[in-house]
């Protein structure tokens, strides 16, 4: 009775009750990671499409350059995603080992 009612025990119980779930922060940043990867992919496709459309408009080669640069944009998007994922992996590995400054280890 008495040890359970002590201030320390009640404080500990209250702190345990108020503590955020352990994965709350990582879930937010996981969503951030997913969003980062998807915008990396989509933006390159959009840029490729716009370049192709612009060149078509300039040269009068109507659908062909748009089609070519659309697929090049997809390739560039996948390249973006691979690089971002590699840098995320590197950051995670560096985070678990030492949090020292490894200047040039970011991105490829």
């Amino acid at each position, binding site marked *: 009775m008495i040890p359970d009612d002590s201030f320390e025990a009640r404080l500990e119980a209250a702190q345990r009750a108020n503590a955020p779930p352990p994965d709350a922060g990582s879930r937010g940043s996981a969503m*951030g990671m997913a969003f980062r990867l998807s915008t990396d992919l989509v933006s*390159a496709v959009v840029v490729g499409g716009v370049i192709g459309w612009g060149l078509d408009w300039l040269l009068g080669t109507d659908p062909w350059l748009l089609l070519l640069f659309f697929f090049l944009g997809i390739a560039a998007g996948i390249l973006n995603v691979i690089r971002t994922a590699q840098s995320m992996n590197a950051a995670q590995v560096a985070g678990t080992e030492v949090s020292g400054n490894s200047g040039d280890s970011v991105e490829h």
Partner: protein
Amino acid sequence: MSTDAHNPFSHSPMAQFEINRIVPMNIGGLDVSFTNSSLMMVITLGLITLFLMMSTRRGALVPGRWQSLAEISYEFVASMMRDTVGDSGRKFFPFVFTLFMFILFLNMLGMVPYSFTVTSHIIVTFGLAALVFIGVTVLGFIKHGFGYLKLFVPHGVPAALLPLIVVIEVISYLSRPISLSVRLFANMMAGHTMLKVFGGFIVMLGFIGGWLPLAFSVAFVGLEVLVAFLQAYVFAVLTCIYLNDALHLH
């Protein structure tokens, strides 16, 4: 669309993103009115200046509450730059710190009810991203001359594939400002639209059924504060990565 869009109590979830002219101005056919968006930016700049000036005014050896807050924000950006750019990036600290604080304060002030979220407009985030992109590109050319173009030519690629790879690399490089701006804008706009939609559900379902969306809204406000911070951080960290690419060619 709806005529009562200017009413802050409007049910439309998009009404919160309306731009209103406060002081209409027109210079040479360009509409340069002072809008609610401009007002929020001025308030943000004022608050950041006030916060940093007041908190570092005394410069005590043992920092008080406000001074430690300012020191934490300095330390946060400084260590982020050390980790991503290294010591040669120290010259660019003022730029990255300003960018981070500006976006962070805009995002956080957008969480205040009845305020306006400037970063939920793509033209603002694209302006910031274009500033970073052009600045980094110019910096790369100043630092390396035309050797900066080697960025588009990866090592060990067979000559036959080179034209294809270079085009892909250029597209990938040009996509940076797009993904940088879309990420910030889409996060802020989606979050604030969701909040408004669920706020509307509370009113519509009333006292009987409104408790569930209310609970969801409360939780979602917490998540939105996290997103507001995270997106400012992501913008700053990507700026650092691009700076690193421009400073250290490989």
